[in-house]
């Protein structure tokens, strides 16, 4: 599975970085940076980030190569 953020929707509120700091952060210009791949131990935090995003811009995409 991979993290996917619809960047056209993202407004850089950073709620995702509060929920899942290992996977999302705001850079020094305040823009979202995130890692697509993640470890199983972060899954719960990432699900919280998906719930928390005010723009509902985050989803988990199943990587077709592992389907």
């Amino acid at each position, binding site marked *: 599975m991979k993290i996917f953020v619809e960047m056209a929707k993202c407004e850089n*509120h950073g*709620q995702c970085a*509060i929920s899942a700091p290992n996977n999302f952060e705001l850079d020094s210009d*305040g823009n979202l940076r995130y890692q697509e791949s993640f470890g199983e131990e972060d899954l719960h935090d990432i699900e*919280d980030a998906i*719930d928390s995003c*005010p723009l509902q811009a985050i989803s988990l995409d199943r990587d077709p190569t592992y389907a």
Partner: protein
Amino acid sequence: MAQEPETLHLDISSEYFRMDSEEVRKARSIHWYARTDWGMAVLSYEDSSFLLKHPLLTQGSAKWPAQHGVTEGHFDRWWQKTLLVLEGDEHNRIRRLVNPAFSPRRIQPLHERFRSLANSLIDDWVGVGKTEFASRFAAPYATRILCMILGIDERDWKKIHQLASTIGLGLGITIQENIARIDEAIAELTRYAKFLVRSRRQSPRDDILSTLVETRDTDDGKLSDQELINLIILLIFAGIDTTRNQLALSVEAFSKQPDQWEKLAANPDHYAAKAVEEALRVNPIGRWISREAADTIQHKERTIEKGTTLHLFTLTSATDPAAFDNPDRIDLDAERAPHFAFGGGIHHCLGHFVARADIGIALSAMATRMKDLRVEEGAEWLPDSGNTGANKLPITFSRRF
């Protein structure tokens, strides 16, 4: 030295000041900010969007009671520990624990209850073609929805509404003369909240409060009883008057554009969400979002000194012609950039999915049953600054069925 750009001064504390005015439009066309007696007023969309989420611009409300002579007591102690005022790790730890309980997924199952509440309130007066909207719809609707979330008996709504209004006085400039009543209301809500937390710990239900009571995280532990009590009072403080007034402001905005009201009525499932966004864009309850510079920052040509207060004007930024076509009109078919009526960054409104859902359901229920909506003489509006709204809103309409 670069020449200082010309900026206008806006008299935002005057009773004649209007957000939707030529004066403000002119100030916005001249420069991205204007001066006020209470700090900078940020006017343009682009600059509001950037500054709203700036990490060195904090919420800045912590000092509000002290600035108005209140330095102790129940209200002050509660205020200093609310999410709205906390910053950094202390804020983020709580926010992270509570966010999931307010997600669209968790709100969805409540939609049917919102709808039957809306329809039952409308039933009471739809036959007579007129009502006083603030007390006959907005107040009971907004308060009873908060009761549903917290699992409070809805028959107690008048009491809760009264307590919410009293603690709301804590945001007024008359806080000091009202502080005894305000402190008493906080004490009463604290007792009530303690009882709610205790009863949900013993026997969980399917309300959001039960979800919050059960929340646990391997890193951040769980919410303590004190944190839960503070949060319950904050939800009552932040969720009722805002929604109540936003309903009135939405009705006012749509009464001026019957064509868009008809569009909503013809296809509420399709247009409800847009209707809410457009109402919040052109007529938001929070006329500005406040920020305070925690450190000196440079933005464009302007050095913003540490301690400077900024008011990010919501209606003004969300009707900026640089970012929106035909900006002052509600257009349910337009693709619009997001407005900032719910603030942004780490303090972005926690309850926005609740508010968006319940306002959309209320507007749809009204549009499908009422046409020719008009605001009549005798409306009592709050000042057009800070948090605005209507204490009285007489409306007339014709019934569709």
